[in-house]
Every structure is written in structure tokens, then in C-alpha cells.
């Protein structure tokens, strides 16, 4: 199960690596952030360790907010 999740994580990583367009990269990064935090939650359930789960939820909320701010900054720079 975890191996399938890691395979699904490799696709946006490859996309972020090979694509030059900044918005495609941002899209891949958003996908990576969501997938990683959900994987952290799954691992925290498997290990029954809720400190890791708290970290996953924090990444899920703060990481997405950070990506939004980054998108606005890139838009301003491109103008």
C-alpha cells in the first residue's frame, strides 16, 4: 500500500523536474505537498504515533498557505 503511494508521489516529482514552465512546476509542487502530508498521516496511523500525525496536519494547512503566497509572489515578479 505504501509502495503504491510512493509510486504516485514519484509522478509529480518527475513532472516538477522535467518541466520548465513555472506554473506546471507549482502544480506539481502542490500535488507533492498534499501527497506527502497524507502519507505522513498514514504512517502515523500504522505506527500508532500521533506526534507524527500532528506534523502531517500542520504541513497540510500551513504548506498549502505557503504555496498560495508563493504563487502570488511569482505572479508579481512576472508582471
Amino acid at each position: 500500500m505504501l509502495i503504491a503511494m510512493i509510486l504516485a508521489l514519484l509522478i509529480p516529482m518527475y513532472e516538477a523536474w522535467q518541466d520548465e514552465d513555472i506554473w506546471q512546476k507549482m502544480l506539481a509542487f502542490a500535488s507533492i505537498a498534499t501527497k506527502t502530508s497524507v502519507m505522513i498521516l498514514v504512517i502515523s496511523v500504522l505506527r500508532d504515533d500521533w506526534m507524527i500525525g500532528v506534523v502531517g496536519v500542520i504541513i497540510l494547512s500551513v504548506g498549502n498557505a505557503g504555496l498560495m503566497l508563493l504563487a502570488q509572489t511569482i505572479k508579481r515578479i512576472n508582471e
Partner: protein
Amino acid sequence: MVDILGYLCIGVGIVFWFWGTFPLLGKRSVLFKLHSLSVADTLGSMSIICGLLLKIPSEWSLLVLALISLAIWNTVLGYVLAYCSSSGGRDER
């Protein structure tokens, strides 16, 4: 029974993940990729977290917080990315 249902939810979520992520590899426009990503990826993540919630219901507060932040943040992030990327004027590819 509930355990099997939880694993079923997680499996469906992983299928949705692959479904939403494979269009990233093509040569389509950003908005097309954003649509498939924001629909299938968010639904897959929410399905996985629902599966975890069925497996361990005692930690519902943390998992419900994760569900809510997924539902709200991914929608808002989708709108913001679409707004920011649509100013270039070369989206119709």
C-alpha cells in the same frame, strides 16, 4: 468488517491519486491539469483519510481537522493557482 472497509477506502483513494496525477505528464494546458488534480487528487486524499478514520476512530479530532483543511485549502489553492497562471494568455494549448 470496519477494518476491511477502511482498507477499501484507502485503496480507492490510491486509485484516485493515480487517476488525478497521470494527466500531469502530458502536454496539456495548466488549467486542464489543475482540474484533474484538484478533483481527483483531493477526493483521493479525502478517501484515504476517511479510511484511516474508520480504522482508528479514537483520534477523530486530528483526522477531521485534516479533512476540513484538505477540503478548504485545496479548493482555495486551486482558485489562486488558476487566477495567477491565467494572466499569461497562452493557456489554450
